[in-house]
């Protein structure tokens, strides 16, 4: 507002000056001389976001390559997404994919034992890391651009010629056994893990956990077989961003990966998910606690659901520093430090709607009731214009933060590619948010936040939860989380 006024005053001086003034205006915006309350401020439009230039091409063996030069700093980073995942491992060998992901890097390559590999990398402040998670595998590197000639061949070696030595496999198993032994030390970990199991089911590839027994079932041959099945060039999308000459790096990539023969086509289907229990209250007793960890929710959907934009507007209305849950359960009722409720979709299998937080034992029931009240309110009462604006504008005005770094744009493009989403998915989403109305919010709240399908999980101290959970439902099912001991120890 002030800026426009200044511009007008200045422009009246002379017509000739106008163009000059306008240029000055853009380069050095005229500045207010007195402080203004935020309500009095107006803002110039934000400059256009430009997607950094990139190219996508394919090697003869089928490997997809993305290159995005960014000469700002003398650094280069790269990621290969590998079409695999722990959801594809056999149920009696849970942990197999994770072990492959770990030992691929920790075990070194056929050319370099691990100690030597570590030395070469760390002496140059470079890293290469690999991992396999639920729905993909990844290998990534980060290096000074001066070391590219060393790092790219090593990166390729790890993907192509991992050694998988037995001693490093055993070490990785020991580490996982240690994690199993420690998995009940933190109540939040217990709640998150067990909640996934309630939603997806104990044996679902989206919730199952590695156990000492399943580790014992995994042999060195299993590791090699799993690797051989999935690690082929046509299974890989490689993306590199940073300080490089495209022609030079293309040659490096060709030398490192070009002679890698494509493998057999894989026809694994992606496991589906459905909700295990239809509803109910579940409890895990931890008598040492003075605070309950509470989660409630149900199975959700994929990211490409056409109502996803409206559902993120709901996320915005419920959460954040001015969200309903923060305002009500935290700031007004003083029930919790952390409270949230989010629609959390996945790319290629149904995600979940999950809400929760922590509250002192004696307010457990009050917390759950308040959470349910807020969910119900979204379904029954239309939100105000002001809340719609808060939900939408916080997404739309911060949209530019999707483009902070070229690496952010590149990893998004690769993810869309991997999961078969259109490259402009983010912009479709933005349009969807813009178009969301009060009626949309209520409609999707009614359709997707389903009170009769909600599962509630409480991790807490049975004696101290007063009033007890039975106040919410006559039937509270107790879950046993004791850890089965390793057989060979």
């Amino acid at each position, binding site marked *: 507002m002030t800026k426009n006024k200044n511009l007008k005053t200045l422009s009246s001086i002379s017509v000739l000056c106008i163009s000059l003034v306008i240029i000055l205006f853009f380069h050095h915006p005229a500045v207010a001389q007195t402080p203004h309350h935020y309500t009095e401020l107006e803002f110039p439009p934000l400059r256009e976001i430009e997607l950094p230039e990139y190219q996508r091409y394919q090697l003869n063996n089928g490997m997809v390559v993305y290159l995005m030069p960014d000469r700002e700093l003398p650094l280069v980073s790269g990621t290969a997404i590998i079409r695999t995942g722990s959801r594809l491992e056999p149920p009696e060998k849970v942990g197999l994919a994770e072990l492959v992901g770990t030992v691929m890097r920790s075990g070194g390559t056929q050319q370099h034992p691990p100690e030597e590999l*570590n030395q070469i990398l760390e002496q140059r*402040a470079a890293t290469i890391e690999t991992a396999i998670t639920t729905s993909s595998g990844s290998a990534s590197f980060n290096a000074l651009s001066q070391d590219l000639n060393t790092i790219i061949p090593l990166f390729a070696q790890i993907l192509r010629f991992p050694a998988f030595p037995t001693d490093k496999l055993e070490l990785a198993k020991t580490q996982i056994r240690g994690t199993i*032994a420690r998995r009940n*030390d933190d109540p939040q970990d217990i709640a998150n893990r067990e909640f996934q199991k309630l939603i997806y089911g104990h044996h679902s590839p989206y919730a199952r956990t590695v156990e000492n027994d399943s580790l014992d079932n995994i042999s060195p041959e299993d590791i090699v077989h799993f690797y051989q099945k999935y690690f082929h060039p046509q299974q890989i999308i490689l993306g590199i961003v940073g300080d490089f000459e495209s022609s030079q790096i293309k040659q490096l990539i060709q030398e490192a990966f070009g002679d890698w023969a494509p493998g057999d086509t894989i026809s694994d289907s992606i496991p589906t998910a459905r909700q295990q229990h239809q509803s109910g209250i579940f409890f895990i007793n931890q008598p040492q606690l003075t605070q309950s960890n509470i989660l409630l929710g149900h199975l959700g959907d994929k990211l490409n659901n056409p109502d996803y934009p409206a559902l993120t507007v709901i996320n915005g209305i419920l959460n954040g520093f001015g969200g309903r849950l923060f305002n009500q359960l935290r700031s007004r009722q003083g029930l919790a430090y952390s409270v949230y409720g989010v629609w959390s979709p996945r790319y290629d299998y149904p995600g979940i709607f999950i809400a929760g937080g922590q509250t002192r034992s004696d307010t457990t029931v009050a917390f759950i009731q308040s959470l349910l009240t807020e969910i119900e309110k979204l379904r029954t009462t239309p939100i105000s214009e002001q809340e719609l604006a808060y939900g939408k504008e916080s997404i739309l005005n911060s949209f*530019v933060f999707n483009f902070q770094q070229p690496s952010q744009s590149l990893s998004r493009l690769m993810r869309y590619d991997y999961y078969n989403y259109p490259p402009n998915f983010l912009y479709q989403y933005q349009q969807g948010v813009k178009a969301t109305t009060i009626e949309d919010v209520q409609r999707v709240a009614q359709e997707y936040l389903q009170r009769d399908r909600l599962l509630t999980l409480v991790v807490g101290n049975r004696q101290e939860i007063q009033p007890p959970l039975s106040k919410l439902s006559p039937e509270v099912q107790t879950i046993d989380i004791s850890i089965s001991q390793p057989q060979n120890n």
Partner: protein
Amino acid sequence: MVKKILLLLLIWSLLLAPATADTSSIQPYLDRVQERIKEFSLDNGMKFIVLEDHQAPLISFVTYADVGSVDEPEGKTGVAHFLEHLAFKGTQHIGTTNYRKEKPVLKSLDRLFDKIQAAKAAGKPQNLAKLERKFNQKLAQASKYVQQNQFGRIVETAGGVNLNAATSTDYTIYFYSFPANKLELWMSLESERFLEPVFREFYQEKDVILEERQLRTDNSPIGKMIEEFLNTAFTTHPYKRPTIGYEEDIRKLTREDIKQFFATYYVPSNLTIAIVGDVDPTEVEKLAEIYFGRYSKKPAPPKITIIEPPQQETKEITLQLPTQPWYLEGYHRPNLNHPDNPVYQIISRILSDGRTSRLYQSLVEEKQIALNAQGFSGFPGDKYPNLVVFYALTAPGHTVEEIRAALDTEIERLKTELVTDQELERVKTQARADLLRTLNSNIGMARLLTEYQAKTGNWRNLFKELDRLSFVSAQDIQRVAQNTFVPQNSTIGRLLPN
């Protein structure tokens, strides 16, 4: 086949080549960044640091208050952190429907709270019930004037992200990022925030903070352990106390305590601001004069003079809780500005950074007695003399005593053998590369610039420290290790299953 041999030759030559730590390519970038940094101070003593980075139309802001839990009066632990929470509650114009009417209600709430405390102390339960009823009525009345979390809503609606704050032993920081066209909005909101704050919803927030303490400390075995460990390692210095505060202190805190603490420590000369991103430093300075020039000059806050006396003998603390074992070992060391600070940093890196680090190689890979073993320096803060702390999680079937023995072997090695040139080169290169990578983060740079400015008196020390690191020799490391890692300077912490 030919290719394979070539590859082998290439690798061979790699290994023969000296382990060069050629970081000459990094230095010009670090120099150029320093040239892009502008600084200025207002007449009231407030300090600004501006780093231009036009890569994306974004700006990150950090407000650094040079006050932390160490500055809290005895019996009022938690007040610095409580104030940080209340700095989100608005002003006389933000967060209220009518401040003129709200103000007396807040006052009477405070009076009722004082009366309740007095009745509790005097053991008069009948008075208490009546007072509490009145208190709750007033609480409901006060709530009617509150526009809940309006400050946060304004920021988020305008496209602000990562809005948050943190309190440590040494400092309190407030931060978020805006799209680049909202510079003046930040100026308006942030200056008003500390010009005329209203600490409303104080009593509800007390419950929130008590929940936070439950979450971080009372229901977390390692949280409890750290609280007890610091309480053991320090006898006198306020590093002894938990930043979140003791529960009994938090319960007793009053709005008046917060106001006093704010008046003493949130004076302009105690505030440093960093703005990093797509800005014009000239415009920043003009706006800063207009908005933050409203703060009047105030006397500098008192400084901590308490000195931790030298430790005389090994101290030990063992806790038994439902958890798998942890081992902790701490040694006293001087503060950030001591000439040996870079030596301590190098020691931490040699022992703990990466797969080639000594603790990982020995405890995790070779002996396989730990899932994780690391050491770090500057705990719980580094503005005052503090601790080097080592910690490890036992692997299944191994004990904290095995960890202790293996750790001591590695620490003894530092005292008896010189570290290799290769190790020294490696960690120096890594330190340079780490700073280079931080340049990619606006908020990361803003945090570092304010912290170095406030703690060392000059943000340039962030860069100079790399030069100091480069001068550290193997002999320096041996000398510092011999002086620091002695039994009478150590505190042992054991967290054991019950």
